[in-house]
């Protein structure tokens, strides 16, 4: 391909994503006006609530970590042609497994070793839950969407049972979760930080590895061909079932790690809503990124700002904080509309 062609293609991609962004922002502004809100006041409240001070900024980063980790995992499964809606359950399962290890304080291991083991087990737990959905799809004829949803509810039931049953707080079981972990197992934040540097580092590392694996390895290519056309992939000696299962395992381990980090870094205990819906939110992130790798960290950042900034909306503007979800949903829907119109144009 000669240079001018490459440049024109980049320009095309640039204008198309610029158009999507502008139209999506327009749609959000329209939605806000429809709800009788001032878009400028809302956007300034959201920015001041998420990035103006270091404390707020670092809190926003603590929302970014689970979002980015889950989105990276979903990039693998989407590339493999799978709709891994079961990611919520995988987060929960990872959280349960890490708590299980950390509760074994009778083991004669140094806290740091136990902590590392807990994070590894959180990956394994998430991967196991992903594997279940994958097995159900490949050998049980259960579509991954419904299998995943089912497993989400099973995981939710399991975590509730643990919190109200075997792992209940000394005295009384409640929705507020298990007892706090021993301080040795808390992921430490430097003074004035609301996010653990280790968690942030892991999330960035995960994104880097995802970029490399999907963009520059043979496995990434195999994954893509399995997702696009499993039959053709088979002719080239690729085993689509195997590659898609690996994708599910990778996504499950990243989701599980998210769960483990939420337990050790954010809540310091197991709570019923440990996943906080970040898995579902990450699905929206990757959809808005049009299933591409590079926009994911930026969109995760925007979503994290929306989620973190919306907390102060009720205080500043007497507006309910669920507005951030309305904005996120509008963004994704309008992006879908733009993609649809572009597709139609291309055909004509």
């Amino acid at each position, binding site marked *: 391909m000669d240079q001018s062609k490459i440049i024109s293609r980049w320009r095309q991609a640039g204008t198309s994503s610029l158009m999507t962004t502008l139209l999506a922002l327009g749609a959000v502004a329209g939605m806000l006006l429809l709800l009788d809100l001032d878009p400028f006041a809302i956007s300034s409240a959201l920015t001041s609530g998420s990035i103006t001070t270091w404390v707020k900024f670092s809190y926003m980063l603590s929302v970014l970590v689970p979002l980015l980790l889950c989105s990276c995992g979903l990039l693998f499964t989407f590339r493999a042609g799978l*709709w891994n809606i079961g990611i919520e359950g995988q987060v929960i399962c990872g959280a349960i497994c890490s708590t299980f290890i950390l509760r074994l304080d009778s083991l004669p291991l140094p806290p740091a070793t136990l902590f590392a083991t807990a994070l590894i087990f959180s990956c394994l737990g998430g991967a196991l839950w992903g594997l279940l959905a994958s097995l159900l799809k490949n050998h049980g004829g*259960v579509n991954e969407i*419904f299998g995943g949803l089912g*497993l989400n509810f*099973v995981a939710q039931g399991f975590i509730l049972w643990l919190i109200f049953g075997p792992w209940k707080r000394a005295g009384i079981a409640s929705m507020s979760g298990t007892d706090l972990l021993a301080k040795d197992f808390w992921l430490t934040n430097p003074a004035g930080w609301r996010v653990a540097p280790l968690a942030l580092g892991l999330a960035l590392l995960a994104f880097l590895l995802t970029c490399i694996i999907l963009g520059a390895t043979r496995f990434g290519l195999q994954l893509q061909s399995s997702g696009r056309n499993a039959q053709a992939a088979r002719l080239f000696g690729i085993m689509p079932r195997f590659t898609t299962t690996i994708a599910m395992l990778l996504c499950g381990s990243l989701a599980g790690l998210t769960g483990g980090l939420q337990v050790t870094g954010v809540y310091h205990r197991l709570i019923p809503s440990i996943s906080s819906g970040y898995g579902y939110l990450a699905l929206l992130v990757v959809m808005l990124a049009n299933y591409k790798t590079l926009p994911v960290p930026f969109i995760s950042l925007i979503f994290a700002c929306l989620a973190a900034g919306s907390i102060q909306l009720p205080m500043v503007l007497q507006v*309910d904080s669920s507005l951030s979800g309305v904005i*996120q*949903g509008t963004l994704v*829907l309008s992006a879908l509309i733009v993609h*649809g119109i572009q597709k139609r144009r291309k055909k004509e």
Partner: protein
Amino acid sequence: MESSIINIIAGIIAIASPLILAALGETITEKGGIINLSLDGTILLSAMTGFTVALQTDSLFTGFAAAALTGVVVAAVLAVIAIWLQQSQVAVGFALTFLCRDLAYFLGNPYAKQKGLQLTTLPLPYLDSIPVLGPIFFSHTIIVYGSMVAIPMAWYFLYHTNQGLTLRLVGENPNACWARGIKPRIVQTMYTLVGGALIGLAGAAFSLAIKPGWGRPQGCEGIGWIALALVIFGSWHPLRVAAGAYLFGFLQILGIYLQDFFPTIPSQVFQTAPFPLMIFTLILIHLGKDTTGKKRLRLLRLLSGNPPQALGKSYHPS
């Protein structure tokens, strides 16, 4: 003892009514090959509109109408983006789920915890005095009667009318329909809207009858996913779907009773039961498929049923 059993059965019929409306709406939508994944959000949003409109206009009828209209509007958004702009039905439905849920909480916030209107029971004259059957079937609110009537109606429509046949054809093979002069996308759009109206009514059935009022949480969260599961559990057949809904109602009530025996298990655990059941049914359906030509167990064949062939695929005329 006898009267308490009657009460339990009547309770199951009442508690399952919104689920039946939503699951039948989804069955009709999916029979045409379209998955409306937005159920959970749509139910919540229409529960909110139903409640607030009834409160504002002081009329239950307009409340229900507004809820049905909300369901239609959400279904229309899905139809435009998924059917006509050919985006993934699952993606659109998923985004709509969350948009509708948060929109419901956002718009409904000022009305939270307000005392609003509520359907009263309307015992049918003469019929309600029949022993046993009367209290079980004939002393409910009007929406419960509606849910009971909707079951045979949906069945009759799908399997005994020409329009029902057309709808099923579109879901199985839209290309063949196109060749016979049926416009698949128009049929799909129409029944997605009809399904949406039923789903909207299910929302109002919650906020105006079963769990009256609006709040965060309202109490109907999660029901949409269960309705989606029931459609598969009932293998896209309205009568089996309805049976599944009653089974779930039974499990819900059973959960309340079992709570006394197993106080350590929170009631939410019992409510997750339909999902393992659904997965189990899907595996059975898979195993029951006659791939080798051998006859499988009769029970498996009884459970087996196939999804509409074109389910989830956007149709585009070439």
